[in-house]
């Protein structure tokens, strides 16, 4: 079996095992969850290191495994990695391990919490590895549903119910619109196969009719866009993360949210290239909504989690800008930020979770001088904030710089790029440094005089792990970019105007396509 099956399979297996463990065996439950995510993370690191030496199959995917599942519809369990998802799987597995370690803050119904956390982990890692459109969606949905339950049950504060309601509504709508788009894509292609490589090959051989592309692409763009908090469908994100328990916010903001972006790059760009060109300009302007508008919103936040939530929405804008640039530099940068932001979002939510746990509040005005009591947590928060502003040395800088270069090289996007750079660098820096000043510096309120720092190694491990990952990819971005570039190259070649100009813009009737599929 492929190593990918094990990476996604161990957490799911552990979730099944936890069902039979009695709820009061707290240590065992936690040990099983930590162990399963640890194994999955180690395997992911191993897979990442072995990536270069693994032999790619005909379509360029490595560690491929395919088992037919529903033969009459052409669905099979099909996993594999290429440059697009190798970093995401590594990031997802490490974040999941860190999130499980951070789950000591959960005090009630731990068994259910860990089961849901493991289902989330296994689901999303499987979704990233999946090369079958059906499993791609199926496993993501499997990971998404626990998010709602976790926010509803273990969420904090008085706005919990409202936030749960909102996030469930938004994300379900997004997922279902995307499902419509995916089904339409499958049917329009005319081949009875849900395999992504088959669909891409079909799209290259017989490009889809332009008017069909223009119907399906917005379904995918907005369906997945809602999942990624594309402006103006972003309002669920800050509030949802504001009330979510820290591990859930880490896993959702860090990992699950990247799924929508990944889906657009993996599926929408290569299969619907002309529509992608058509919508790129529009998407670029929506990014400005994410970067500038949400940036201003973030400046006004009084709650640390809401601030981080808004800043994470703003970062999504930069990734969308990279996608909208439709060239190799921009899209590579987008994939780089997806990985980097996964670590960063997880780190910041973990730290804010720690602060909330110890102080009982995240109101910025009530906090202050925490660096004196919390040297470890405080320093990490400072570094995370700097990474969030795009300081060199952190992985985010590499991705953001690449995205801006990529976007600038598209003449049509000059204005957008200028606005985005301004928004990302100036606005981002303003709210991040301001938050750091209010929380870490200044006088320490009397009531926080006894707040303990993360003292032992076990408690420090998750934060340190995430920070180290950020720094490693910040100093050695080639570890990722060398893997990403060849596969992004393939996709941008398909989307480039010269490639799509060859495509005939006449509508290919579906009957003809399916006939030829039958003959083939």
């Amino acid at each position, binding site marked *: 079996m492929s190593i990918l099956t094990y990476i996604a399979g161990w957490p799911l297996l552990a979730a099944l095992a936890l069902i039979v463990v009695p709820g009061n065996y707290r240590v065992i439950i936690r040990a099983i969850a930590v162990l399963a995510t640890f194994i999955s993370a180690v395997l992911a690191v191993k897979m990442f290191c072995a990536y270069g030496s693994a032999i790619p199959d005909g379509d360029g995917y490595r560690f491929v495994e395919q088992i037919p*599942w*529903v*033969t*009459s*519809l052409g669905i099979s369990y099909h996993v594999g990695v290429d440059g697009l998802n190798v970093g995401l799987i590594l990031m997802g597995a490490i974040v999941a391990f860190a999130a499980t370690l951070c789950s000591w803050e959960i005090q009630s119904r731990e068994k259910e919490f860990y089961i849901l956390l493991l289902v989330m982990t296994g689901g999303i890692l499987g979704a990233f590895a999946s090369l079958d459109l*059906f499993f791609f969606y*199926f*496993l993501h*949905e*499997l990971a998404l*549903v626990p998010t*709602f339950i976790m926010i*509803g*049950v273990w969420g904090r504060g008085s706005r919990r119910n409202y936030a749960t*309601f909102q996030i*469930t*509504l938004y994300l*379900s*709508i997004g997922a*279902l*619109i995307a*499902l*419509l788009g995916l*089904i*339409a894509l*499958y*049917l*329009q292609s005319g081949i009875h196969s849900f395999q992504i490589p088959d669909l891409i090959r079909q799209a290259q051989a017989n490009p889809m009719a332009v008017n*069909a592309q223009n119907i399906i692409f917005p379904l995918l763009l907005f369906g997945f866009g809602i999942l990624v908090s594309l402006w103006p469908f972003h309002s669920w994100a800050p509030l949802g993360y504001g009330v979510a328990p820290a591990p859930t916010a880490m896993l959702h903001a860090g990992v699950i949210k990247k799924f929508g972006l990944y889906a657009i790059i993996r599926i929408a760009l290569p299969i619907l290239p002309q529509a992608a060109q058509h919508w790129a300009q529009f998407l670029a302007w929506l990014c400005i909504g994410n970067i500038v508008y949400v940036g201003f919103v973030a400046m006004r936040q009084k709650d640390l989690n809401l601030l981080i939530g808004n800043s994470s929405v703003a970062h999504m804008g930069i990734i969308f800008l990279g996608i909208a640039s439709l060239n190799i530099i921009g899209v590579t940068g987008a994939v780089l930020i997806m990985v980097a932001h996964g670590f960063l979002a997880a780190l910041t939510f973990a730290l804010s979770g720690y602060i909330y746990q110890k102080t009982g509040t995240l109101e910025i005005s009530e906090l202050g001088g925490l660096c004196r009591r919390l040297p470890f947590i405080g320093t990490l928060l400072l570094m995370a904030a700097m990474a969030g502003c795009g300081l060199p040395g952190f992985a985010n800088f590499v991705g953001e710089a690449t995205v801006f270069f990529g976007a600038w090289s598209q003449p049509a996007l000059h204005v957008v790029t200028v606005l985005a750079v301004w928004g990302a660098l100036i606005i981002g820096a303003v709210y991040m440094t301001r938050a750091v000043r209010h929380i870490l510096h200044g006088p320490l309120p009397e009531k926080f005089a006894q707040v303990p720092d993360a003292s032992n190694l076990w408690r420090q491990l998750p934060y340190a792990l995430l920070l180290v990952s950020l720094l490693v990819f910040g100093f050695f971005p080639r570890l990722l970019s060398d893997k990403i570039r060849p596969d992004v190259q393939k996709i941008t070649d398909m989307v480039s105007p010269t490639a799509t100009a060859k495509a005939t813009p006449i509508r290919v009737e*579906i*009957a003809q396509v399916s006939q030829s599929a039958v003959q083939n």
Partner: protein
Amino acid sequence: MNTSLISLEIFVIGLGLVLMLADVFVAPERRHFIGYAAIGALAFLLATNLSSANTGLSSTAFNGMFVEDGLAIFFKRLFMLAAILVLFMAVEFSSEVKAGITEYYSLIVFALSGMLFAASANDFVMLFVSVELITVTFYILTSFQRSRLTALEAGVKYLILGALSSAFLVFGIALIWGTTGKLNFTELAAVAPQFEQSKVFLLGVLLVLVGLGFKISAFPFQIWTPDVYQGAATPTTAFLAIGSKAAGFVLLLRVLFTAVPTVTANWGTLLIFISGITILYGNLCAIPQRNLKRLMGYSSIAHAGYLLLGVAALSTTGQSAVLYYLAGYLFTVLAAFTVVVLVLRQTDIEDISALAGLNQRSPLLAASMTIAMVSLAGLPPMAGFFGKFLLLKSVILKAQETGNHGYYCLAFTAIAGVIISLYYYFGVVRAIYWSKDPADLSPIVLSAPAKVSLWACIAGIFWLGMFPNTVLNLADEAAHVLGI
């Protein structure tokens, strides 16, 4: 003449009669064994049916009135399985029935025989007789708890509206026969194109659809559903929800695609509207409900709407999606109602709040209800997800083939319905796990048969959700019989 084809029906009717006779010889305190005997007999018949080689050929009896083909076999197995699980429920419920529990079992078996005939009906006379056999037994089953006022009210409502729908049905059949002179579906299909312009003929077909619309509780004939679901004894409600609805659907499929396919081909828009409105009506009205059985009533209307998606798609993929969805719906609905029976049999209130703290009273019941609700909401990896996926796929395929934007609108309506339904299904789940200070925390003791039926339902839900291959192939084969 090929009488051996109806041997299954004969056995089932014989079983009903034997059960009634057995009542005389069995002491009252041991009568639940009669229920288990009925379950055993039906399970034996089902096993024989499953093991008999499926030739794939269709054969007819009684001058073509009765047809035994893939579709009939698929539905017969579905009905038998439903009846078995409902009988499990009825045995658990027997403590609530003051007198005549054996009649209750045998009435379920008689209703089953009606459904079996419905699955094979290939003639309007057979259609009417089987519908009446089902409906008349359900009149009695609905008001079986004579001492409860709500049961009597439900019985009267079902009687009046059921009689009304039968009247529509018969009138429609009369008009069809009057214009074409044919009652057999196959013969009718041959002559129907000549009568496409005849308004009387079309009115006849429409009235037949009205009559069947009552059975499947499609808008605007859904009005009886919540009241009857609420008032009837819970096993009756469960059998109504799956058995009666599935019978309505098999007859609908036969009439639309075997008897009058040329007319149906022009009625896509009508079906789109009925399906869309049914989905929205069921889901929107379910939101404010606090009574669990009433909620399931509205949810059942919504699911009739989803099922109609596959009918409105006017394609083989749509029909096979309907069959698959019904199979998943069987396990899901029966799991939910089994929990309702086991938890609420002692209480008169059937409020959702009565489920509070169920996870502490019985983890298995809580898990079954949660799985059932999640499957009804259509989330993976349950049966409901794959079923809805197939239904949506068939609708979008039709939209792409015809370019009819109505189908895209219908797909979006279905999605809106799913989103709305999340609210009330999760409301039930929330009541189980997270209500504040539940009143009653006494553990619920489950009998072994009850556990068996619950585990069977759970296994069915996951099996259909995660390994759809087998049933999907069966459904595809069955749908090919219809030929559109």
